């Protein structure tokens, strides 16, 4: 598991505007430099917030994906998916 890499990637969506645009337009290519497992790549590219949450990715970090439209996410879609986590 490389949760820290996923958290760092999400933070780059906030900090690096070129990466932010790439994560919106072509996320599969944008995440290539990151050392992620196949499972992590699959969850990330699907915008599967519930699975990412279960993997330990921080909620604030995933919020950047939703705020900036990365991996096909937007706020309502993100909310629907994260709310599926039992709580």
């Amino acid at each position, binding site marked *: 598991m490389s949760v820290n890499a996923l958290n760092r990637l999400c933070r780059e969506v906030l900090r690096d505007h070129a990466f932010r645009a790439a994560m919106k337009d072509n996320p599969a290519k944008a995440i290539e430099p990151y050392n992620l497992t196949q499972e992590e790549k699959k969850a990330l590219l699907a915008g599967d917030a519930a699975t990412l*949450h279960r993997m330990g990715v921080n*909620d604030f970090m995933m919020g950047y994906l939703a*705020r900036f439209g990365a991996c096909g996410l937007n706020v309502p879609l993100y909310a629907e998916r*994260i709310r599926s986590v039992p*709580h």
Partner: protein
Amino acid sequence: MAKIVAAYGLPHTPFYPSQVIEEGPSSPTGKMFARARESLIAARPDVIVIFDTDHYNTFFFDNFPILAIGIDERFRGPVDEPRGGMTVYDVPSMPKLADYLHHRLVRAGYDVASLREFVADHSVMVPLHFVNPDMKIPVIPVYISGHVPPLPPAERCLAFGREIRKALEAWPENLRVAIIGTGSFSLEVFGPRINEGKTDSVPDPQWAADVCDYIEAGDIKTLLAKATEDRLHAAGNVGGELLNWIAMFAFTETRKPDFLLRQMEQGHAYAGWRLD
């Protein structure tokens, strides 16, 4: 010696600066921050010490201190593009005083990390935006880890605040100091308990109301007894921000606030104490 002239508890909701521009100074949020600003300006502080929980912008998971203090001539923020936008400020600080506090705290047994050439996010900058116009008053940020488990115990945060108070009161120069503690009592941000279609929610409004009641009564003893780590997490994934208020209570102790303005739909409040 330094004199503590005022203390405030304030929220830092990221979209408030843009919301108040849009809705005007007579909007509920505009008026609540104005109450705190008028009080703080009337207290004429030479420096503000603010207790805050960083939202992963000053620190990150690979190196996340429980307690930290910013020591530099200036710092910049916010660096996290708060929703709706806000001015990015260059904030003056007081490195000599911050360095003195760091030394005093470590020698008193508090393993406080020191920060230099640092930046701040909306959690520091939103309250300052409203109560420190044009950032004319120097600011020293003091960080308490209130999001990432394990949280420091509430008693430890109060004792930490008291140690800062003792150190300030022993500072050899005349100085007027205002204290701010910032954060929510109940709030979930981007976590599983957010509302449908939204970025946040208030999972435990009753807890937020109870916290306000304790503050209004000056009953920090009961609040401290109830503010366990499990209780804070149950109030939302940023419920631990109450620890910043608890550190601030070291300066107000059991005094009732001059004002306490509840904003329960956001799970937080605005409170102020003039202490001079």
